[in-house]
């Protein structure tokens, strides 16, 4: 699928919802729980969470690929885990910003 920054997607097989912060151009093989994500407004096809994609997602955390060209913000947690072309995305380190507001 082609990803656009700002677009919102959801898992087909669990409750996970994400917002795209950054994405590489072109076709992106993005999955959650082993299945491709769908637009947040679409009907979730349903199905089983793949056994090796079951580490879960956490609300408010960001997930990135190795070269950080893909960055997703989890807006709703779920049991499946996010992966790009089969490789699990990792948690982005939170920058400790002093609370300024």
């Amino acid at each position, binding site marked *: 699928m082609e990803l656009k920054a700002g677009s919102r997607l959801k898992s087909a097989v669990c409750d996970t919802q994400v917002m795209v912060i950054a994405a590489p151009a072109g076709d992106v093989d993005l999955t959650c729980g082993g299945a491709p994500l769908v637009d947040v407004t679409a009907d979730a096809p349903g199905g089983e969470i793949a056994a090796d994609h079951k580490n879960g997602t956490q609300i408010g955390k960001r997930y990135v690929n190795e070269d950080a060209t893909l960055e997703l913000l989890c807006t709703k947690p779920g049991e499946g885990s996010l992966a790009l072309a089969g490789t699990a995305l990792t948690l982005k380190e939170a920058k400790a910003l002093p609370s300024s*507001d």
Partner: protein
Amino acid sequence: MNLMMLLEMASGAMGDRVAVQCDDDRFSHAELYAGAGRIAAFARGTAAEHLAVLDTSSPAVPLALFGSGWAGKPFVPLNYRLTGDELDALIERITPAILVADAERARQLSGRDGLEVVTREDFLAIARGDETPPDPDWQMEPEEIAILLFTSGTTGAPKAAVLRHRHMVSYILGSVEFMAAAEDDAALVSVPPYHVAGMAAVLSSIYAGRRIVQLPNFSADRWLDVARSAGVTNAFVVPTMLQRIVAELEQKGGEPPSTLRALAYGGGKMPLPVIDRAMNLFPPTVDFTNAYGLTETSSTIAVLGPDDHRVAAFNDDPAVKRRLGSAGKPLPGVEVEIRDEDGKPVPAGEPGEIWVRGEQVSGEYLGRGSLLVEGGWFPTHDGGFLDEEGYLYVQGRIDDVIVRGGENLSPGEIEDVLHDHPAVADCAVVGVPDEEWGEAVVAAVVPTGDASVEDLQAWVKQHLRSSRVPERIEFWDELPYNETGKLLRRKVREALGGAA
């Protein structure tokens, strides 16, 4: 992208945590979410195209902010000190609109065409009603306008700064960690809702999960009282407020609130003596943060963090010590450049105009389009420089806008009013450094005959507002002009005690 996403996440993960409290009134995140939904339903049932609030801080403000995002109508917080012609002009610009106001003002303003006036009490009652809130059906177009904030330029009527959903959301996501606050954290918000810092404080506190404690009318002793009684851990103030809080503590000999861990400030230049005294008065464990930003940049673009404050304050090396007066370093995702008059970047150490670029930068005014130039760069009209280490120093406006108490004042607007007075042949209004206000309004007047300072001050107060009244007026024989007839404000400012 919509502001509501931030509240939806907060409500989902920490629904029962108190989101906002004002005196005895409280809303949890879940209640704020449901309330926003009911406000949206109400707003959608009217012909309003804007949702405006003309009131001091109360839970109506976050309800209106999020409710307007849900309904898809821009939120317009108006300066509650506005009266008469000034207010009428702004109302006209946003009609048809819903206007939330206190009971007295609601009475004065009701009956106008296209204006649905709701008292604060009724507004809160709608939010707390029985109806099921709508489904999460807010529109997700990032370009939709989230907030309109009126801000003054050098001349004329205020401009409406446009902040779209994508600006505010990217600012929050870029500077706040979700649920970073501990359960008993509480942020004291005493900046008014019509100031971008007031908007930023609401959004970041909710996303971080930090209880907002609203203080509608600031005074130093009330601030200290509320900070102590509400167990406040964080606070944001403009420099004038910190100066008063420090003065209050020094005069009364009291201890700073024991729960306070972090004090952030911004909105104008912090006088060095004030931050110095504050850092010596508060325990060394208190984190001080300077947040520099503009309405047009969705608030903060650069931050001088707590450790930078400590290193600078307790250091002998002058190059390090002076950093206490800096605005710190740009936020991640924000780029800052210093450019000369021709728009060319200058090397470190050299002064020029501060330009900024980033997702959170809007630089757009309603009806006037975008001020962003090639590459998405925005000229802030603030002068300054970057030192060798990348610390940003802000030196004051390069245009002639006066920044007093965190508020932008238009000298042209005050001059126009003075010109209308029969005793004024010519005048110039400038800002001069002031420890209490950052800048004070001062005027040079060429009188026609007899004129008194008191008369002219009363005149300005009558036609504008007390904050616009020149503190000092000097009577001159003439004002300095160049050959092309341009008023040389710099010379006036210098002569009246300001910077060149």
